Protein backbone atom coordinates (compact mmCIF):
# COMPACT_ATOMS: atom_id res chain seq x y z
CA UNK A 1 0.00 0.00 0.00
CA UNK A 2 2.71 2.41 1.05
CA UNK A 3 4.75 1.67 -2.05
CA UNK A 4 1.71 2.29 -4.14
CA UNK A 5 1.21 5.73 -2.59
CA UNK A 6 4.79 6.68 -3.37
CA UNK A 7 4.40 5.46 -6.91
CA UNK A 8 1.25 7.47 -7.35
CA UNK A 9 2.87 10.62 -5.98
CA UNK A 10 5.81 10.28 -8.31
CA UNK A 11 5.43 12.25 -11.48
CA UNK A 12 6.74 11.05 -14.80
CA UNK A 13 9.26 13.37 -16.45
CA UNK A 14 6.61 14.37 -18.95
CA UNK A 15 4.21 15.43 -16.20
CA UNK A 16 6.88 17.73 -14.77
CA UNK A 17 7.93 19.12 -18.13
CA UNK A 18 4.47 19.60 -19.64
CA UNK A 19 3.31 22.63 -17.58
CA UNK A 20 6.72 24.26 -18.00
CA UNK A 21 6.64 23.64 -21.71
CA UNK A 22 3.25 25.34 -21.80
CA UNK A 23 4.66 28.40 -20.04
CA UNK A 24 7.61 28.46 -22.44
CA UNK A 25 5.57 28.15 -25.63
CA UNK A 26 2.92 30.53 -24.37
CA UNK A 27 5.54 33.06 -23.27
CA UNK A 28 7.28 33.04 -26.64
CA UNK A 29 4.05 33.19 -28.63
CA UNK A 30 2.62 35.98 -26.50
CA UNK A 31 5.79 38.00 -26.91
CA UNK A 32 5.82 37.52 -30.70
CA UNK A 33 2.12 38.32 -30.95
CA UNK A 34 2.47 41.55 -28.97
CA UNK A 35 5.36 42.77 -31.13
CA UNK A 36 3.52 41.80 -34.30
CA UNK A 37 0.32 43.57 -33.24
CA UNK A 38 2.14 46.71 -32.20
CA UNK A 39 3.81 46.98 -35.58
CA UNK A 40 0.61 46.38 -37.51
CA UNK A 41 -1.25 49.01 -35.51
CA UNK A 42 1.56 51.55 -35.32
CA UNK A 43 2.32 51.47 -39.03
CA UNK A 44 -1.30 52.39 -39.70
CA UNK A 45 -1.26 55.24 -37.21
CA UNK A 46 -1.12 58.83 -38.49
CA UNK A 47 2.27 60.51 -38.95
CA UNK A 48 1.54 62.72 -35.96
CA UNK A 49 0.62 59.79 -33.73
CA UNK A 50 3.75 57.95 -34.81
CA UNK A 51 5.87 60.82 -33.51
CA UNK A 52 5.00 59.94 -29.93
CA UNK A 53 4.18 56.26 -30.50
CA UNK A 54 7.77 55.65 -31.57
CA UNK A 55 9.06 56.61 -28.13
CA UNK A 56 6.40 54.53 -26.42
CA UNK A 57 7.20 51.41 -28.42
CA UNK A 58 10.95 51.61 -28.96
CA UNK A 59 12.36 53.43 -25.98
CA UNK A 60 9.96 53.21 -23.04
CA UNK A 61 9.92 49.42 -22.48
CA UNK A 62 13.71 49.21 -22.11
CA UNK A 63 13.91 52.33 -19.95
CA UNK A 64 11.06 51.13 -17.76
CA UNK A 65 12.73 47.77 -17.20
CA UNK A 66 16.05 49.44 -16.41
CA UNK A 67 14.34 51.78 -13.97
CA UNK A 68 12.47 48.98 -12.20
CA UNK A 69 15.21 46.39 -12.39
CA UNK A 70 18.44 48.33 -11.90
CA UNK A 71 17.95 51.93 -10.81
CA UNK A 72 15.19 51.51 -8.24
CA UNK A 73 16.87 48.39 -6.74
CA UNK A 74 20.16 50.26 -6.43
CA UNK A 75 18.55 52.91 -4.22
CA UNK A 76 16.58 50.32 -2.30
CA UNK A 77 19.72 48.27 -1.66
CA UNK A 78 21.41 51.43 -0.38
CA UNK A 79 18.49 51.98 1.98
CA UNK A 80 18.44 48.34 3.15
CA UNK A 81 22.16 48.49 3.90
CA UNK A 82 21.42 50.92 6.75
CA UNK A 83 18.76 48.65 8.22
CA UNK A 84 18.78 45.47 10.29
CA UNK A 85 18.42 41.88 9.08
CA UNK A 86 14.68 41.95 8.35
CA UNK A 87 14.64 45.65 7.37
CA UNK A 88 12.42 46.62 10.31
CA UNK A 89 14.59 49.36 11.81
CA UNK A 90 17.42 51.72 10.93
CA UNK A 91 20.76 50.90 12.48
CA UNK A 92 23.00 53.48 10.80
CA UNK A 93 26.43 52.37 9.70
CA UNK A 94 26.45 49.21 11.79
CA UNK A 95 26.46 46.85 8.78
CA UNK A 96 29.45 48.67 7.32
CA UNK A 97 31.30 48.64 10.63
CA UNK A 98 30.55 44.92 10.77
CA UNK A 99 31.92 44.48 7.26
CA UNK A 100 35.25 46.10 8.02
CA UNK A 101 35.87 44.80 11.55
CA UNK A 102 34.65 41.20 11.82
CA UNK A 103 37.75 39.01 11.31
CA UNK A 104 36.09 36.59 8.89
CA UNK A 105 34.87 39.48 6.75
CA UNK A 106 38.33 41.04 6.80
CA UNK A 107 39.57 37.71 5.39
CA UNK A 108 36.91 38.02 2.71
CA UNK A 109 38.20 41.48 1.81
CA UNK A 110 41.87 40.44 1.64
CA UNK A 111 40.95 37.39 -0.45
CA UNK A 112 38.94 39.56 -2.84
CA UNK A 113 41.89 41.91 -3.12
CA UNK A 114 44.20 38.99 -3.94
CA UNK A 115 41.78 37.89 -6.65
CA UNK A 116 41.44 41.29 -8.29
CA UNK A 117 45.18 41.82 -8.35
CA UNK A 118 46.26 38.37 -9.54
CA UNK A 119 43.54 37.43 -12.03
CA UNK A 120 43.71 40.50 -14.33
CA UNK A 121 47.50 40.59 -14.11
CA UNK A 122 48.15 36.91 -14.85
CA UNK A 123 45.39 36.55 -17.46
CA UNK A 124 46.59 39.61 -19.34
CA UNK A 125 50.26 38.66 -19.22
CA UNK A 126 49.66 35.07 -20.33
CA UNK A 127 47.04 36.09 -22.90
CA UNK A 128 49.35 38.76 -24.28
CA UNK A 129 52.23 36.27 -24.55
CA UNK A 130 50.12 33.72 -26.41
CA UNK A 131 48.75 36.42 -28.70
CA UNK A 132 52.30 37.53 -29.49
CA UNK A 133 53.57 33.97 -29.98
CA UNK A 134 50.75 33.11 -32.38
CA UNK A 135 50.60 36.49 -34.13
CA UNK A 136 51.34 35.87 -37.80
CA UNK A 137 51.84 32.19 -37.06
CA UNK A 138 50.35 29.87 -39.66
CA UNK A 139 47.63 27.47 -38.58
CA UNK A 140 47.40 28.96 -35.11
CA UNK A 141 43.61 28.88 -35.00
CA UNK A 142 43.45 25.44 -33.36
CA UNK A 143 45.79 26.61 -30.61
CA UNK A 144 43.74 29.75 -30.06
CA UNK A 145 40.48 27.82 -30.01
CA UNK A 146 41.74 25.50 -27.30
CA UNK A 147 42.93 28.35 -25.09
CA UNK A 148 39.75 30.31 -25.72
CA UNK A 149 37.45 27.34 -25.03
CA UNK A 150 37.17 27.79 -21.22
CA UNK A 151 35.40 31.11 -21.93
CA UNK A 152 32.43 29.10 -23.21
CA UNK A 153 32.20 26.87 -20.14
CA UNK A 154 30.17 27.85 -17.09
CA UNK A 155 32.00 28.73 -13.90
CA UNK A 156 30.25 25.77 -12.29
CA UNK A 157 31.49 23.44 -15.03
CA UNK A 158 35.00 24.88 -14.76
CA UNK A 159 34.91 24.42 -10.99
CA UNK A 160 34.03 20.73 -11.34
CA UNK A 161 36.78 20.29 -13.93
CA UNK A 162 39.35 21.78 -11.56
CA UNK A 163 37.99 20.14 -8.44
CA UNK A 164 38.74 16.89 -10.19
CA UNK A 165 42.29 18.07 -10.90
CA UNK A 166 42.71 19.03 -7.22
CA UNK A 167 41.19 15.80 -5.90
CA UNK A 168 42.97 14.60 -2.76
CA UNK A 169 43.27 10.98 -1.65
CA UNK A 170 43.75 10.80 2.14
CA UNK A 171 44.46 7.07 2.09
CA UNK A 172 48.15 6.78 1.22
CA UNK A 173 47.76 3.19 0.02
CA UNK A 174 45.20 4.12 -2.63
CA UNK A 175 46.21 5.52 -6.00
CA UNK A 176 45.55 9.20 -6.66
CA UNK A 177 42.84 10.12 -9.09
CA UNK A 178 43.61 13.86 -8.93
CA UNK A 179 46.11 14.99 -11.54
CA UNK A 180 47.82 17.52 -9.28
CA UNK A 181 48.43 14.97 -6.51
CA UNK A 182 49.80 12.50 -9.04
CA UNK A 183 52.19 15.12 -10.44
CA UNK A 184 53.30 16.14 -6.95
CA UNK A 185 54.02 12.51 -6.06
CA UNK A 186 55.87 11.90 -9.30
CA UNK A 187 58.08 14.88 -8.44
CA UNK A 188 58.69 13.47 -4.97
CA UNK A 189 56.44 15.72 -2.84
CA UNK A 190 53.75 14.59 -0.45
CA UNK A 191 50.59 16.22 -1.76
CA UNK A 192 48.69 18.35 0.78
CA UNK A 193 44.90 18.36 0.88
CA UNK A 194 44.91 21.05 -1.78
CA UNK A 195 41.62 22.83 -1.12
CA UNK A 196 42.00 22.84 2.69
CA UNK A 197 45.54 24.21 2.77
CA UNK A 198 45.46 27.96 3.62
CA UNK A 199 46.54 30.14 1.79
CA UNK A 200 47.39 27.75 -1.05
CA UNK A 201 43.68 27.02 -1.65
CA UNK A 202 42.85 30.63 -2.56
CA UNK A 203 45.60 30.59 -5.17
CA UNK A 204 44.32 27.30 -6.57
CA UNK A 205 40.87 28.85 -6.98
CA UNK A 206 42.42 31.90 -8.62
CA UNK A 207 44.07 29.56 -11.15
CA UNK A 208 40.59 28.52 -12.34
CA UNK A 209 39.61 32.12 -13.05
CA UNK A 210 42.92 32.78 -14.83
CA UNK A 211 42.35 29.65 -16.90
CA UNK A 212 38.99 31.07 -18.01
CA UNK A 213 40.01 34.70 -18.61
CA UNK A 214 43.29 34.14 -20.46
CA UNK A 215 41.46 33.24 -23.68
CA UNK A 216 39.54 36.50 -23.54
CA UNK A 217 42.73 38.53 -23.14
CA UNK A 218 44.38 36.57 -25.93
CA UNK A 219 41.54 37.14 -28.42
CA UNK A 220 41.16 40.86 -27.78
CA UNK A 221 44.90 41.58 -27.70
CA UNK A 222 45.52 39.33 -30.70
CA UNK A 223 42.96 41.31 -32.70
CA UNK A 224 44.64 44.55 -31.63
CA UNK A 225 48.06 43.24 -32.76
CA UNK A 226 46.64 42.42 -36.18
CA UNK A 227 45.99 46.14 -36.59
CA UNK A 228 49.64 47.10 -36.21
CA UNK A 229 50.74 47.97 -39.77
CA UNK A 230 53.37 45.73 -41.36
CA UNK A 231 55.45 48.80 -42.25
CA UNK A 232 55.99 49.64 -38.60
CA UNK A 233 57.18 46.11 -37.89
CA UNK A 234 59.43 46.05 -40.96
CA UNK A 235 60.92 49.43 -40.12
CA UNK A 236 61.84 48.23 -36.65
CA UNK A 237 63.41 45.11 -38.15
CA UNK A 238 65.52 47.23 -40.50
CA UNK A 239 66.63 49.24 -37.50
CA UNK A 240 67.85 45.97 -36.03
CA UNK A 241 65.53 45.81 -33.05
CA UNK A 242 65.55 42.47 -31.28
CA UNK A 243 62.38 40.48 -30.83
CA UNK A 244 62.11 41.45 -27.16
CA UNK A 245 62.71 45.16 -27.76
CA UNK A 246 60.21 45.16 -30.59
CA UNK A 247 57.65 43.60 -28.24
CA UNK A 248 58.30 46.17 -25.50
CA UNK A 249 58.78 49.29 -27.62
CA UNK A 250 56.36 48.70 -30.50
CA UNK A 251 53.74 46.06 -29.80
CA UNK A 252 52.85 47.07 -26.24
CA UNK A 253 52.58 50.83 -26.81
CA UNK A 254 50.53 50.30 -29.97
CA UNK A 255 47.94 48.13 -28.27
CA UNK A 256 47.92 50.03 -24.96
CA UNK A 257 44.26 51.02 -25.21
CA UNK A 258 43.23 47.40 -25.70
CA UNK A 259 45.33 46.29 -22.73
CA UNK A 260 43.52 48.79 -20.52
CA UNK A 261 40.15 47.50 -21.73
CA UNK A 262 41.15 43.89 -21.10
CA UNK A 263 42.46 44.58 -17.61
CA UNK A 264 39.39 46.56 -16.54
CA UNK A 265 36.94 44.04 -18.02
CA UNK A 266 38.63 41.13 -16.26
CA UNK A 267 38.88 43.15 -13.06
CA UNK A 268 35.15 43.85 -12.98
CA UNK A 269 34.37 40.22 -13.83
CA UNK A 270 36.64 39.01 -11.05
CA UNK A 271 35.10 41.28 -8.43
CA UNK A 272 31.66 39.90 -9.23
CA UNK A 273 32.54 36.19 -9.53
CA UNK A 274 31.07 33.99 -6.85
CA UNK A 275 30.37 30.69 -8.62
CA UNK A 276 33.92 29.34 -8.40
CA UNK A 277 34.32 29.84 -4.67
CA UNK A 278 30.80 28.66 -3.95
CA UNK A 279 31.17 25.46 -5.98
CA UNK A 280 34.70 24.49 -4.98
CA UNK A 281 34.91 25.27 -1.27
CA UNK A 282 31.56 26.83 -0.40
CA UNK A 283 33.57 29.79 0.88
CA UNK A 284 35.02 27.65 3.70
CA UNK A 285 38.67 27.22 4.72
CA UNK A 286 39.37 30.99 4.45
CA UNK A 287 38.70 31.12 0.71
CA UNK A 288 35.61 33.32 0.79
CA UNK A 289 35.24 36.39 -1.44
CA UNK A 290 32.87 39.35 -1.25
CA UNK A 291 30.43 38.29 -3.99
CA UNK A 292 29.92 34.89 -2.37
CA UNK A 293 29.64 36.36 1.12
CA UNK A 294 27.02 38.79 -0.19
CA UNK A 295 24.99 35.87 -1.48
CA UNK A 296 25.23 33.85 1.71
CA UNK A 297 24.45 36.83 3.96
CA UNK A 298 21.40 37.81 1.92
CA UNK A 299 19.96 34.47 0.89
CA UNK A 300 21.28 31.93 3.41
CA UNK A 301 21.41 33.94 6.64
CA UNK A 302 18.51 36.00 5.26
CA UNK A 303 20.21 39.13 6.56
CA UNK A 304 19.21 41.78 4.04
CA UNK A 305 21.12 44.45 5.99
CA UNK A 306 24.60 42.93 5.79
CA UNK A 307 23.91 41.48 2.35
CA UNK A 308 23.00 44.91 1.02
CA UNK A 309 26.01 46.54 2.69
CA UNK A 310 28.31 44.05 0.95
CA UNK A 311 26.59 44.73 -2.39
CA UNK A 312 27.16 48.45 -1.87
CA UNK A 313 30.83 47.90 -1.03
CA UNK A 314 31.16 45.85 -4.21
CA UNK A 315 29.52 48.63 -6.19
CA UNK A 316 31.75 51.33 -4.67
CA UNK A 317 34.81 49.25 -5.58
CA UNK A 318 33.67 49.15 -9.21
CA UNK A 319 32.63 52.83 -9.46
CA UNK A 320 36.08 54.27 -10.30
CA UNK A 321 36.28 51.86 -13.24
CA UNK A 322 32.83 52.88 -14.46
CA UNK A 323 33.78 56.52 -14.16
CA UNK A 324 36.98 55.92 -16.10
CA UNK A 325 35.10 54.05 -18.84
CA UNK A 326 32.47 56.76 -19.19
CA UNK A 327 35.24 59.35 -19.53
CA UNK A 328 36.99 57.27 -22.21
CA UNK A 329 33.71 56.91 -24.09
CA UNK A 330 33.11 60.66 -23.99
CA UNK A 331 36.57 61.30 -25.41
CA UNK A 332 36.02 58.66 -28.09
CA UNK A 333 32.67 60.12 -29.09
CA UNK A 334 33.93 63.69 -29.27
CA UNK A 335 36.78 62.55 -31.52
CA UNK A 336 34.34 61.03 -33.98
Amino acid at each position, binding site marked *: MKDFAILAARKTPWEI*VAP*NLTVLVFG*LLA*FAAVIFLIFILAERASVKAQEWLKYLVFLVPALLLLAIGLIY*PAFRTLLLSFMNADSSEFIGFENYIWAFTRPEIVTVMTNTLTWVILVPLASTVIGLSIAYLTDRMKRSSAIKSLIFMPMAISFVGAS*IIWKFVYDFEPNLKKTDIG*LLSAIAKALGFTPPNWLLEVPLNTFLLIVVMIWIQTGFAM*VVLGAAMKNIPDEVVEASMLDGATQWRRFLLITIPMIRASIVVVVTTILIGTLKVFDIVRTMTGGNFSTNVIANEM*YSQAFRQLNYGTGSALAIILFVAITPIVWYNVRQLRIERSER
Partner: protein
Amino acid sequence: MTTAEKTTLGTTRTGRAKVKNVFTSPWASAMAIVLAIVWTIPTFGLLVSSFRPQKDINSSGWWTFFANPNVTLENYQQVLFEGTSVTPPLSQYFFNSLAITIPAALFPLTLAVFAAYALAWFEFKGKNFIFFTVFALQVVPLQMSLIPLLQLFSQGIKIGDTTLIPDLGITGTYIPIWIAHTIFALPLATFLLHNFLTQIPRELVEAARVDGAGWFTLFRRIIFPLSIPAIASFAIFQFLWVWNDLLVGLTFGGGAKDIAPLTVRLAEMVGTRGGGWEVLTAGAFISIIVPLIVFFSLQRYFVRGLLAGSVKG
Protein backbone atom coordinates in the same frame (compact mmCIF):
# COMPACT_ATOMS: atom_id res chain seq x y z
CA MET B 1 47.69 37.85 -66.33
CA THR B 2 50.41 40.27 -67.48
CA THR B 3 54.00 40.04 -66.30
CA ALA B 4 53.77 43.37 -64.50
CA GLU B 5 50.87 42.18 -62.38
CA LYS B 6 52.62 38.96 -61.60
CA THR B 7 55.72 40.71 -60.26
CA THR B 8 53.80 43.12 -58.10
CA LEU B 9 51.81 40.30 -56.64
CA GLY B 10 54.98 38.30 -56.20
CA THR B 11 56.88 40.98 -54.34
CA THR B 12 54.07 41.79 -51.94
CA ARG B 13 53.78 38.14 -51.15
CA THR B 14 57.46 37.72 -50.37
CA GLY B 15 57.34 40.98 -48.43
CA ARG B 16 54.62 39.65 -46.17
CA ALA B 17 56.25 36.25 -45.98
CA LYS B 18 59.48 37.86 -44.78
CA VAL B 19 57.66 39.55 -41.92
CA LYS B 20 55.88 36.30 -41.18
CA ASN B 21 59.02 34.21 -41.09
CA VAL B 22 60.65 36.33 -38.45
CA PHE B 23 57.78 35.69 -36.09
CA THR B 24 57.30 32.00 -36.60
CA SER B 25 60.37 30.71 -34.90
CA PRO B 26 59.98 27.02 -34.04
CA TRP B 27 60.40 27.93 -30.36
CA ALA B 28 57.42 30.24 -30.39
CA SER B 29 55.28 27.59 -32.05
CA ALA B 30 56.40 24.91 -29.63
CA MET B 31 55.64 27.11 -26.64
CA ALA B 32 52.20 28.00 -27.96
CA ILE B 33 51.41 24.34 -28.57
CA VAL B 34 52.55 23.35 -25.08
CA LEU B 35 50.36 26.05 -23.54
CA ALA B 36 47.36 24.93 -25.60
CA ILE B 37 47.85 21.36 -24.38
CA VAL B 38 48.20 22.44 -20.74
CA TRP B 39 45.02 24.50 -21.12
CA THR B 40 43.07 21.55 -22.50
CA ILE B 41 44.22 18.76 -20.17
CA PRO B 42 41.78 19.51 -17.29
CA THR B 43 38.73 19.44 -19.61
CA PHE B 44 40.07 16.43 -21.45
CA GLY B 45 40.51 14.53 -18.16
CA LEU B 46 36.91 15.24 -17.24
CA LEU B 47 35.66 14.07 -20.62
CA VAL B 48 37.66 10.83 -20.50
CA SER B 49 36.55 10.12 -16.93
CA SER B 50 32.88 10.57 -17.74
CA PHE B 51 33.09 7.51 -20.01
CA ARG B 52 34.88 5.25 -17.52
CA PRO B 53 33.10 2.78 -15.25
CA GLN B 54 32.59 3.97 -11.67
CA LYS B 55 35.08 1.43 -10.29
CA ASP B 56 37.84 2.65 -12.62
CA ILE B 57 37.26 6.36 -11.95
CA ASN B 58 37.59 5.92 -8.21
CA SER B 59 40.55 3.57 -8.22
CA SER B 60 42.89 4.96 -10.87
CA GLY B 61 43.78 8.26 -12.53
CA TRP B 62 42.07 9.05 -15.85
CA TRP B 63 45.46 9.05 -17.60
CA THR B 64 45.68 5.27 -17.03
CA PHE B 65 42.62 4.92 -19.26
CA PHE B 66 44.77 4.63 -22.36
CA ALA B 67 46.63 1.63 -20.97
CA ASN B 68 43.40 -0.04 -19.93
CA PRO B 69 40.49 1.39 -21.95
CA ASN B 70 37.07 0.53 -20.51
CA VAL B 71 34.29 2.58 -22.06
CA THR B 72 30.77 2.82 -20.69
CA LEU B 73 27.74 5.06 -21.12
CA GLU B 74 26.41 3.97 -17.73
CA ASN B 75 27.29 7.31 -16.06
CA TYR B 76 25.34 9.28 -18.62
CA GLN B 77 22.40 6.90 -18.40
CA GLN B 78 22.41 7.31 -14.63
CA VAL B 79 22.60 11.13 -14.39
CA LEU B 80 20.31 11.83 -17.32
CA PHE B 81 17.46 9.47 -16.66
CA GLU B 82 17.61 8.01 -13.17
CA GLY B 83 16.17 10.22 -10.50
CA THR B 84 13.45 10.55 -7.95
CA SER B 85 10.82 13.22 -7.47
CA VAL B 86 13.09 14.74 -4.81
CA THR B 87 16.15 14.75 -7.04
CA PRO B 88 14.93 14.69 -10.64
CA PRO B 89 17.32 13.44 -13.32
CA LEU B 90 19.47 15.95 -15.18
CA SER B 91 17.40 15.61 -18.35
CA GLN B 92 14.77 17.69 -16.62
CA TYR B 93 17.24 20.40 -15.64
CA PHE B 94 18.55 20.32 -19.18
CA PHE B 95 15.06 21.14 -20.36
CA ASN B 96 14.80 23.89 -17.73
CA SER B 97 18.06 25.40 -18.96
CA LEU B 98 16.74 25.50 -22.51
CA ALA B 99 13.41 26.91 -21.41
CA ILE B 100 15.20 29.65 -19.48
CA THR B 101 17.83 30.43 -22.08
CA ILE B 102 15.81 30.79 -25.28
CA PRO B 103 13.40 33.48 -24.04
CA ALA B 104 16.10 35.09 -21.91
CA ALA B 105 18.13 35.60 -25.09
CA LEU B 106 15.23 36.67 -27.32
CA PHE B 107 13.50 39.16 -25.01
CA PRO B 108 16.45 41.41 -24.16
CA LEU B 109 17.67 41.41 -27.77
CA THR B 110 14.32 42.59 -29.05
CA LEU B 111 13.99 45.31 -26.44
CA ALA B 112 17.62 46.31 -26.87
CA VAL B 113 17.45 46.63 -30.64
CA PHE B 114 14.35 48.81 -30.16
CA ALA B 115 16.08 51.05 -27.64
CA ALA B 116 19.25 51.16 -29.72
CA TYR B 117 17.22 52.29 -32.72
CA ALA B 118 15.64 55.07 -30.68
CA LEU B 119 18.97 56.20 -29.24
CA ALA B 120 20.70 56.08 -32.60
CA TRP B 121 18.11 57.68 -34.88
CA PHE B 122 15.54 59.67 -32.91
CA GLU B 123 16.31 63.27 -32.05
CA PHE B 124 15.10 64.21 -28.61
CA LYS B 125 16.18 66.03 -25.48
CA GLY B 126 18.15 64.05 -22.94
CA LYS B 127 19.28 61.48 -25.52
CA ASN B 128 22.92 61.76 -24.50
CA PHE B 129 22.06 61.53 -20.83
CA ILE B 130 20.08 58.33 -21.39
CA PHE B 131 22.84 56.88 -23.53
CA PHE B 132 25.51 57.45 -20.88
CA THR B 133 23.24 56.14 -18.14
CA VAL B 134 22.66 52.94 -20.08
CA PHE B 135 26.38 52.64 -20.66
CA ALA B 136 27.20 53.15 -16.99
CA LEU B 137 24.53 50.65 -15.90
CA GLN B 138 26.47 47.92 -17.73
CA VAL B 139 28.89 47.55 -14.89
CA VAL B 140 26.52 47.84 -11.95
CA PRO B 141 26.93 44.48 -10.22
CA LEU B 142 23.89 42.21 -10.30
CA GLN B 143 24.27 41.90 -6.56
CA MET B 144 22.90 45.43 -6.21
CA SER B 145 19.56 44.34 -7.67
CA LEU B 146 18.99 40.87 -6.30
CA ILE B 147 17.26 41.58 -2.98
CA PRO B 148 14.88 44.31 -4.20
CA LEU B 149 14.04 42.42 -7.38
CA LEU B 150 13.30 39.25 -5.44
CA GLN B 151 11.02 41.23 -3.11
CA LEU B 152 9.36 42.83 -6.12
CA PHE B 153 8.51 39.45 -7.64
CA SER B 154 7.14 38.06 -4.40
CA GLN B 155 5.47 41.14 -2.86
CA GLY B 156 5.24 43.89 -5.48
CA ILE B 157 6.29 47.46 -4.71
CA LYS B 158 4.48 49.44 -2.04
CA ILE B 159 5.13 52.93 -0.79
CA GLY B 160 3.24 53.30 2.45
CA ASP B 161 -0.19 51.91 1.66
CA THR B 162 -0.25 52.67 -2.05
CA THR B 163 0.60 49.72 -4.24
CA LEU B 164 2.74 50.78 -7.18
CA ILE B 165 3.18 47.29 -8.57
CA PRO B 166 1.07 44.45 -7.15
CA ASP B 167 2.29 40.98 -6.24
CA LEU B 168 2.26 39.34 -9.65
CA GLY B 169 2.02 35.76 -8.46
CA ILE B 170 4.73 34.59 -10.81
CA THR B 171 7.21 33.13 -8.31
CA GLY B 172 7.91 29.49 -9.00
CA THR B 173 7.66 29.94 -12.76
CA TYR B 174 10.32 30.79 -15.34
CA ILE B 175 8.98 34.32 -15.67
CA PRO B 176 11.04 35.99 -12.89
CA ILE B 177 14.20 34.38 -14.30
CA TRP B 178 13.38 35.59 -17.81
CA ILE B 179 12.66 39.11 -16.59
CA ALA B 180 15.80 39.24 -14.45
CA HIS B 181 18.03 38.07 -17.30
CA THR B 182 16.33 40.51 -19.66
CA ILE B 183 16.98 43.44 -17.34
CA PHE B 184 20.59 42.49 -16.68
CA ALA B 185 21.35 42.05 -20.39
CA LEU B 186 19.74 45.28 -21.56
CA PRO B 187 22.54 47.81 -20.90
CA LEU B 188 25.30 45.93 -22.74
CA ALA B 189 23.01 44.81 -25.57
CA THR B 190 21.63 48.31 -26.10
CA PHE B 191 25.09 49.83 -26.06
CA LEU B 192 26.55 47.36 -28.58
CA LEU B 193 23.59 47.49 -30.94
CA HIS B 194 23.57 51.28 -30.71
CA ASN B 195 27.19 51.34 -31.85
CA PHE B 196 26.23 49.16 -34.77
CA LEU B 197 23.07 51.04 -35.74
CA THR B 198 24.84 54.42 -35.85
CA GLN B 199 27.04 53.02 -38.62
CA ILE B 200 24.07 52.59 -40.96
CA PRO B 201 24.52 55.29 -43.65
CA ARG B 202 22.46 58.41 -42.98
CA GLU B 203 21.54 58.71 -46.67
CA LEU B 204 19.83 55.33 -46.57
CA VAL B 205 17.67 56.29 -43.61
CA GLU B 206 16.90 59.74 -45.00
CA ALA B 207 16.02 58.38 -48.42
CA ALA B 208 13.52 56.00 -46.85
CA ARG B 209 12.07 58.83 -44.78
CA VAL B 210 11.70 61.01 -47.88
CA ASP B 211 9.92 58.14 -49.63
CA GLY B 212 7.36 58.37 -46.89
CA ALA B 213 8.37 55.47 -44.65
CA GLY B 214 7.22 56.05 -41.07
CA TRP B 215 9.48 55.24 -38.13
CA PHE B 216 7.96 51.80 -37.76
CA THR B 217 8.19 50.89 -41.44
CA LEU B 218 11.75 52.18 -41.49
CA PHE B 219 12.64 49.86 -38.64
CA ARG B 220 10.92 46.83 -40.12
CA ARG B 221 12.14 47.28 -43.70
CA ILE B 222 15.65 48.71 -43.30
CA ILE B 223 17.06 48.92 -39.78
CA PHE B 224 16.11 45.43 -38.60
CA PRO B 225 17.28 43.49 -41.69
CA LEU B 226 20.58 45.40 -41.67
CA SER B 227 21.24 44.72 -38.01
CA ILE B 228 20.69 40.97 -38.14
CA PRO B 229 24.44 40.15 -38.14
CA ALA B 230 24.97 42.28 -35.03
CA ILE B 231 21.92 40.78 -33.37
CA ALA B 232 23.21 37.28 -34.16
CA SER B 233 26.60 38.01 -32.58
CA PHE B 234 25.02 39.26 -29.44
CA ALA B 235 22.45 36.45 -29.38
CA ILE B 236 25.25 33.89 -29.14
CA PHE B 237 26.85 35.90 -26.38
CA GLN B 238 23.64 36.20 -24.42
CA PHE B 239 22.75 32.54 -24.97
CA LEU B 240 26.07 31.44 -23.48
CA TRP B 241 25.78 33.94 -20.65
CA VAL B 242 22.34 32.74 -19.59
CA TRP B 243 23.12 29.06 -20.08
CA ASN B 244 26.21 29.38 -17.90
CA ASP B 245 24.69 31.63 -15.26
CA LEU B 246 24.40 30.44 -11.69
CA LEU B 247 23.64 33.58 -9.68
CA VAL B 248 20.34 34.57 -11.34
CA GLY B 249 19.13 30.98 -11.61
CA LEU B 250 19.92 30.35 -7.96
CA THR B 251 18.34 33.55 -6.67
CA PHE B 252 15.16 33.48 -8.73
CA GLY B 253 14.69 29.75 -9.20
CA GLY B 254 16.99 28.00 -6.76
CA GLY B 255 14.27 26.85 -4.44
CA ALA B 256 12.12 25.17 -7.06
CA LYS B 257 13.47 22.12 -8.82
CA ASP B 258 10.80 22.36 -11.54
CA ILE B 259 12.43 25.49 -12.92
CA ALA B 260 16.06 25.48 -11.74
CA PRO B 261 18.69 25.35 -14.52
CA LEU B 262 21.47 22.75 -14.87
CA THR B 263 24.10 24.92 -13.23
CA VAL B 264 22.06 25.16 -10.02
CA ARG B 265 21.63 21.38 -9.81
CA LEU B 266 25.31 20.75 -10.58
CA ALA B 267 26.46 23.17 -7.90
CA GLU B 268 24.14 21.36 -5.50
CA MET B 269 25.55 17.97 -6.51
CA VAL B 270 29.11 19.14 -5.81
CA GLY B 271 28.09 20.57 -2.46
CA THR B 272 26.23 17.58 -1.14
CA ARG B 273 28.29 15.06 -3.06
CA GLY B 274 25.02 13.79 -4.53
CA GLY B 275 27.16 11.15 -6.12
CA GLY B 276 30.81 10.47 -6.76
CA TRP B 277 33.01 11.54 -9.63
CA GLU B 278 31.26 9.22 -12.07
CA VAL B 279 28.10 11.34 -11.70
CA LEU B 280 29.84 14.70 -11.47
CA THR B 281 32.04 14.22 -14.53
CA ALA B 282 29.13 13.09 -16.70
CA GLY B 283 26.88 15.81 -15.28
CA ALA B 284 29.45 18.52 -15.87
CA PHE B 285 29.99 17.36 -19.40
CA ILE B 286 26.26 17.45 -20.13
CA SER B 287 26.18 21.06 -18.98
CA ILE B 288 29.19 22.15 -21.03
CA ILE B 289 28.37 20.30 -24.24
CA VAL B 290 25.79 22.85 -25.41
CA PRO B 291 28.05 25.90 -25.00
CA LEU B 292 30.93 23.98 -26.58
CA ILE B 293 28.86 23.13 -29.66
CA VAL B 294 27.66 26.73 -29.92
CA PHE B 295 31.18 27.97 -29.39
CA PHE B 296 32.97 25.77 -31.91
CA SER B 297 30.34 26.13 -34.63
CA LEU B 298 29.84 29.88 -34.24
CA GLN B 299 33.23 30.93 -32.90
CA ARG B 300 33.69 33.64 -35.52
CA TYR B 301 30.47 35.44 -34.56
CA PHE B 302 31.19 34.96 -30.90
CA VAL B 303 34.61 36.58 -31.26
CA ARG B 304 33.09 39.40 -33.29
CA GLY B 305 30.57 40.11 -30.55
CA LEU B 306 33.27 39.97 -27.91
CA LEU B 307 35.51 42.39 -29.79
CA ALA B 308 32.68 44.82 -30.39
CA GLY B 309 31.92 44.75 -26.69
CA SER B 310 35.39 45.22 -25.36
CA VAL B 311 37.47 47.13 -27.86
CA LYS B 312 34.96 49.92 -28.22
CA GLY B 313 33.84 50.12 -24.61
